[in-house]
């Protein structure tokens, strides 16, 4: 390609990514190890099991549960879990027999990703962002969660840098289970609030 003339076709997306990576490389920013570290974190460290540990502990340890609802960020730190500096607050949302919480970010796709994992594709889709604030019950039903009419819905739109996670209702048949076993039953979807357990 002649650098003097502007190209006529949009560059393939892989080329565009490679271009900025090359720029960072040339500027001495050493992007490769950072990409490796970040990708490892995204895939191995920021996993829904973090949030599942929080939930299981909140189910089994009443004092922790109270601390979690009082100050989520401090409480999850007790379990060795951290959040980015700009996430200054974590609000744990308590589902009950009559209240169901669900999380969205209508303006972009913010989440407490270090705790509940990076958001799944559908969470970032325009359809979920547009619809769940206005048609929460309908959308949840379409997603397989048909809530009885006596359960109220609370939708949390992540518009500031406060982050949310849903604490699902513990299934009654699991009362008394050890914490480790409880961790295994908590799903990412239940912590976003599009599923109950």
């Amino acid at each position: 390609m002649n650098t003097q003339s502007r190209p006529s076709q949009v560059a393939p997306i892989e080329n565009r990514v490679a271009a900025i990576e090359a720029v960072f490389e040339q500027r001495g920013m050493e992007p490769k190890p950072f990409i490796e570290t970040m990708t490892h974190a995204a895939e191995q460290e920021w996993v829904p099991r973090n949030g599942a540990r929080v939930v299981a502990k909140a189910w089994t340890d009443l004092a922790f549960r109270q601390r979690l609802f009082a100050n989520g960020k401090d409480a999850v730190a007790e379990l060795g879990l951290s959040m980015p500096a700009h996430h200054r607050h974590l609000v744990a949302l308590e589902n009950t027999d009559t209240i169901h919480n669900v999380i969205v970010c209508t303006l972009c796709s913010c989440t407490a990703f270090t705790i509940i994992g990076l958001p799944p594709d559908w969470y970032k889709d325009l359809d979920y962002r547009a619809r769940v604030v206005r048609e929460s019950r309908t959308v949840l039903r379409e997603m397989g969660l048909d809530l009885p009419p006596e359960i109220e819905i609370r939708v949390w739109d992540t518009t500031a840098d406060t982050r949310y996670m849903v604490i699902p209702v513990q299934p009654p048949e699991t009362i008394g289970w050890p914490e480790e076993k409880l961790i295994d039953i908590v799903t990412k979807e239940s912590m976003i609030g599009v599923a109950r357990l």
Partner: protein
Amino acid sequence: MDGIHDLGGRQGFGTIRYAVGAPAFHADWEKRVNALYGMAVRRGIFNMDEYRHAIERMPARQYLSASYYERSLTSLLTLCVEKGIVTREELEHLAQGIVPLSEPSAPGRTNLPDPETFQPGDLVRVKNDFFAGHVRMPGYIRGKPGVVVSESPRYPFPDAHAHGVEAVDEPTYDVAFRTEDLWPNSADSALVHVGVFQSYLERAL
């Protein structure tokens, strides 16, 4: 800005492509974009508000047709050009093709005057406020009444922070809105909780 990104409550969207255990990434380049923009933030090239705003500044058609990580990449590239890290020409030379970027930004603004402090239980109204720059007030709450549920730590005022304008951090309030007030006769009944910056709120009379 009243951009196409402000999707809450907009109709005509479809079924959610939902699957349990759905992935966050679909391709290797998406992971690299996620890391590279994170690196730029970590290095102080831009902040998260600038990052979000540069996504919103994408031309409307591109915004709606791009995938999540393509939007993320476009913001990263736009800000690296705007911050002088690289020229568009160099990017296009390296990428061997056109590199779509976002549109220029409108000016930012500082915290709004006469801020009021609210307590849980206070009745508030979102100001009937319009601003061409970055704003974290979704259009569906503009002018609507709600109830303060709690207060969050102070955050940088996004209308300033996305534009390199000096401003003080300010409280955000968790405000609960009834869908009956947001979309009368045209929504499923629910409470919608929004994290609302102090500057956007006034006391309801």
